[in-house]
């Protein structure tokens, strides 16, 4: 985390081109990152537009034929449709199941990441802005959470609460908010001492204006990086928890649950049920990580010269 903030005292050199164009140009400098971004956009499209085009709706029992169960990839169904990635034990087309599962995984990951950012921001900025006693209490709590691996926090949370979408969201947010709070606070503490902040204070601007219009936008770059990495991490966490059977309920089959369903069949050599959802998961997480890596390179002020 230190590298996100350490070089921040340096004043930014204004470049002639507009900020956004420059950003795009710098992002495009590395080919792998562009590929990763294209893949990521593809993944998002598949997840949210794909369900309209899949051969089956895995939730609609009328469309599923139990006689087609456990067919290997490439088999034909009774009605002449091809199951490109095979079917599961209930005769569901794996392609459709993956597309729907991807939507659930992405939604849960992004939503929990977003909520954790908001809570972390509130806690971090309050700590930096309040200082003194309030700061100590908040940061102690943050340290307390950071002392335990996030997987453990989420697991304990779900062990107490039970399965469910809302509970998984809560567990993911609870296990990650402290990360954001720490990053935001460390950035905000540096920003708080800068001249523009005392200028804003000198103009007697209202506090909410100073925080939302002056402080927050300047804390944004490191936050974007941490948020992107954490979405990938949330997706992994949710998949692991659902795989273990303590995460999402069976009615919300995310990629992790699909892999878990296939787990009992791999001993008999029916590998596809676990392998293909896993590939979808790896592609998603990998592309997010690569995009985040490039964002970190660009947004890190140390590399800004």
């Amino acid at each position: 985390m230190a590298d996100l903030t350490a070089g921040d005292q340096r004043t930014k050199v204004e470049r002639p081109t507009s900020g956004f164009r420059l950003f795009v140009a710098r992002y495009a400098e590395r080919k792998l990152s562009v590929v990763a971004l294209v893949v990521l956009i593809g993944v998002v499209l598949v997840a949210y537009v794909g369900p309209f085009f899949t051969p089956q709706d895995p939730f609609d029992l009328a469309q599923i034929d139990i006689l087609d169960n456990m067919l290997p990839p490439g088999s034909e169904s009774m009605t002449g449709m091809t199951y490109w990635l095979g079917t599961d034990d209930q005769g569901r087309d794996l392609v459709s199941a993956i597309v729907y599962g991807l939507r659930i995984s992405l939604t849960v990951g992004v939503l929990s990441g977003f909520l954790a950012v908001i809570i972390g921001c509130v806690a971090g900025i309050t700590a930096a802005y309040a200082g003194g006693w309030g700061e100590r209490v908040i940061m102690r709590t943050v340290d307390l959470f950071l002392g335990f691996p996030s997987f453990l926090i989420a697991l304990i949370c779900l062990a107490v609460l039970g399965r469910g979408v809302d509970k998984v969201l809560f567990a993911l947010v609870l296990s990650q908010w402290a990360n954001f709070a720490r990053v935001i606070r460390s950035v905000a503490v540096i920003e708080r001492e800068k001249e523009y902040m005392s200028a804003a204070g000198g103009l007697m601007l209202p506090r909410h204006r100073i925080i939302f219009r002056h402080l927050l936008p300047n804390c944004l770059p490191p936050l974007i990086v941490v948020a992107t990495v954490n979405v990938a991490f949330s997706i992994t966490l949710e998949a692991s928890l659902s795989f273990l059977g303590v995460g999402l309920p069976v009615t919300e089959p995310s990629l992790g649950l699909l892999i878990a369903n296939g787990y009992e069949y791999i001993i008999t050599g029916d590998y596809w049920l676990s392998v293909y959802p896993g590939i979808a998961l790896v592609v998603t997480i990998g592309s997010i990580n690569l995009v985040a890596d490039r964002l970190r390179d660009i947004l890190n002020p140390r590399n800004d010269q």
Partner: protein
Amino acid sequence: MTIFLIRRLMQSFVVLLIMSLVVFAGVYAIGNPVDVLISPEATELQREQTIQQLGLDRPMWEQYLIFLKNIAEGKLGTSFVHNRPAITLILERFPATFELAFSALVIAVFLGIPLGLWAGLRADSFSGRSIISGSIILFSMPTFWVGLLMIIAFAINLNWLPTSGRGEVGTFLGIRSSLFTIDGLRHLVLPATNLALYPLALIIRLTASGTSETMSLDFMRSARAKGLHAPRIVFVHLLKNILIPIVTVIGLQFSVILAFAVVTESIFSWPGMGRLIIESINLLDRPVIVAYILVTILIFMLINLLVDVLYSFLDPRVRLEKM
């Protein structure tokens, strides 16, 4: 040093108190503790006895005090499923988990540091870049899925290694472990490697970036100018300087490994604490869940304390009294 230790122990104690309060609140928030802590199949007499022992007929604050007292005495209820004290169940499983996590850490360190050094020293070579890309790919692979692939490849297709269980357990110097028998080691290879992958990727990246940063510093140039041999430069001058962050991360990674052991144990049916907790959650064996939470919190706080102490030994610049 002593002052630091005392202060840290006191802090840990406060954290434990807070945690016990949270867990207590959790157990009581879900529902009637009588249903939570007493098996539905218990006889009326057993019910009465447990209610008496846990003091469930007393006021809330008094119940919390009894809860604390029971924790201190190690009485954390009896498992519904196994019908044995929850705490014994967990402590019995701990050696298996520890052995798995320890082996994973050893693999990660002894592969990760040399690979990272190589990648850092030969950053522009094909091998160096492959190591770094490999570690990035490892980062993006969920542990549990890689575990499945390993089972498919090594256990089912190649039939080289067993897929589940701990194997034969040997005794050496009074310690019982799978590390001491051939069969035990064969059972250990796959789960330990699986668990090692994530920390391995982290250690590789950390060592590589530390190496390439340190190699460009002045004291490295003077070491070379003095005509020192390359091995001495790398293993004495370089390693000494990059080891501190690596050791810290290794310490912290050990707790992450312990946590993720839950996943690996479930895939490879390793009879450790992690598998126990997942089974208990699925069977709603709540006394075991409560006991597991308290025991793991205690373990993690001990690890954090150890890491801090170790850190101060390695880096004299860190003054513990100020922490």
